[in-house]
């Protein structure tokens, strides 16, 4: 049975309205300020650290993103946990908010499909996040120029631009997750709490848990243990498990993109980035190849989560 008309009629209208709601909302302004302030602090730390240590570094500009100075984490670490917060902040009440305002049945009685409403809300959130992240990126580049005084090379710009793109994808993953929970739970507070719970779990608990679970699935070989090495099977299992979390995927992509010396992606954490293995830097194309599977993984998980939310939303009763 084919549906009549386009699934996307009304999509643009919904998107524009949601976008203007987001851009004028107090919530968004608070989130933006939070991100900007935190990013500035990280940047300041990075610049000081760079001035203290580095003499000659061909990728000085990229160090802005990855260098940290105690007690502040690096810019990318900040981003990797603030971006999910922004995305969740924008998405947690997207659908259940319409229920609670009793607007859903009225809007769905207009000649549009539910597809347009859900996808419009997703796009609006994504565009909002993209606008904020692009602004932030421009701020970093501008301040970097001022503070370091050395203009970035073309490759550095390219790499940091890819980083921007991947960050938007990463934001999209969390946005779809927030949308999913806003479909599942009628109460925005519940949806927000559950999404934050999932965020905490995937971000901080899962990377640790993955190691423990890997030890059970693939027990370490005593011969490797005797040598003080990690059993390869265990390490691989741990890595596969850890990659179920979008934060892990994001961290790996960032390592590949912002540290040109990265030749392969093992289980590394952002905190280890500073002292990454020395070696000849790879050209940008090869770094992209290394980061490619993880990027696709993030996009795929965003699509998967969105589809699940979409299917549930299609079957949901509209009455409040």
């Amino acid at each position, binding site marked *: *049975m084919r*549906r*009549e*008309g386009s699934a996307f*009629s*009304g999509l643009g*209208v*919904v998107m524009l*309205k949601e976008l203007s*709601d987001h851009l004028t909302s107090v919530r968004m302004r608070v989130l933006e300020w939070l991100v900007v302030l935190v990013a500035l602090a990280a940047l300041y730390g990075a610049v000081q650290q760079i001035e203290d240590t580095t003499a000659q570094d061909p990728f000085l500009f990229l160090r802005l993103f990855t260098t940290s100075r105690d007690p502040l984490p690096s810019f990318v670490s900040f981003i990797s946990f603030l971006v999910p917060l922004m995305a969740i902040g924008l998405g947690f009440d997207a659908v259940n908010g319409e229920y609670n*305002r*009793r*607007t859903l*049945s*009225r*809007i*769905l*009685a*207009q*000649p*549009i*499909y539910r597809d347009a409403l859900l996808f419009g809300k997703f796009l609006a959130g994504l565009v909002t996040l993209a606008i904020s992240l692009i602004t932030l990126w421009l701020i970093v580049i501008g301040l970097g120029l001022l503070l370091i005084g050395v203009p970035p090379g073309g490759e550095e710009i390219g790499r940091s631009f890819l980083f921007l793109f991947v960050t938007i994808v990463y934001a999209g993953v969390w946005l779809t997750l927030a949308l999913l929970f806003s479909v599942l739970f009628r109460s925005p507070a519940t949806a927000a709490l559950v999404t934050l719970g999932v965020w905490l779990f995937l971000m901080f608990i899962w990377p640790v848990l993955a190691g423990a679970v890997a030890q059970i699935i693939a027990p370490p070989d005593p011969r490797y243990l005797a040598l003080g090495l990690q059993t390869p099977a265990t390490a691989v299992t741990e890595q596969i498990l850890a990659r179920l979390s979008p934060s892990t995927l994001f961290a790996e992509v960032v390592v590949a993109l912002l540290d040109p010396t990265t030749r392969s992606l093992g289980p590394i954490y952002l905190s280890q980035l500073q002292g990454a293995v020395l070696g000849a830097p790879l050209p940008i194309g090869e770094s992209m190849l290394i980061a490619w599977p993880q990027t696709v993984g993030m996009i795929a998980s965003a699509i998967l989560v969105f589809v699940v939310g979409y299917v549930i939303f299609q079957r949901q*009763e*509209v*009455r*409040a």
Partner: protein
Amino acid sequence: MSTDVVIEAKGLTKNYGQAVAVDHISFAVGRGEIFGLLGPNGAGKTTTILMLLGLTDISAGEVRVLGFDPAREPLSVKRRVGYLPDTVGFYDGLTAADNLRYTARLIGFKRSEREKRVTEALDQVGLAEFAEKRVGTFSRGMRQRLGLAEILMKGAQIAILDEPTSGLDPHATTELLAIIRGLKSEGVSVLLSSHLLDRVQSVCDRVALFSGGRIALMGSVAELGREVLGGGYVVDIEAEGAGFAERLALIPGVSGVEKTGIGKLRLHADRDVRSEAAAEVVAMHGRLKYLGVQEVSLDAIYSRYFETRPDEEMTMKEGARHAA
């Protein structure tokens, strides 16, 4: 069925798991008609409405709205049908006009047309001066009117109103019913649900009484009255003078005369005998003080049908008092 049927349901059924919310109902709404779905809470009125709009799946049966199947051609149906949900909500942060503009954009009206339609619709429901006020400041009555403005703005051929008068004070109810009559006079067919029987009675051409997911009774209020209350007219007379009762009993069609008080009589007849009764009283030089026919009331039909019978309860209470 004739081509002037705008909504037609046949054997329409909705199951929620084991529970049956709507059970094989069939009805038809004609063009330009005001059709009422009446029934107690949980009778299945809202569920029926949602099925007509394609907003919930149909478990069994068939519906045609303006000839379209809401399940297969939801956009065609929704383009032509306006819907006022039972608890209508708007975006509180937007103005009344902006809320309507958003809907107008969703429908796909061009910019110039949009402005014209929004202004006219707000004017028609008496919200013109509140057009640029935020809906957050609106009272319940104003929101209901804004909901009707949306239907007007849409230029819908059918208006489906779920409990349009619930939660409104008598004045606001009267205003709203006037707007609903206005819809009818513009050729819009109206399907409305309610449990406020007496007020709704005054606007509905035909009603369907719902009970437990089924249509118990359907027809015009007068028809239902005849069917349920056993038909006939009840005429009350109050007059000064004597000996009317015998004369009035002779009027053709009068089946009984009852004395209800000093100088008060009640006639039971199979037609409206007011003019003859008045003529008799005047002919006997009586002073006619009151003459009225009891309207068939949906309330009476309803309670009689569902056998809560308020009259009977009252007689029983009176009986108890007498006994005491």
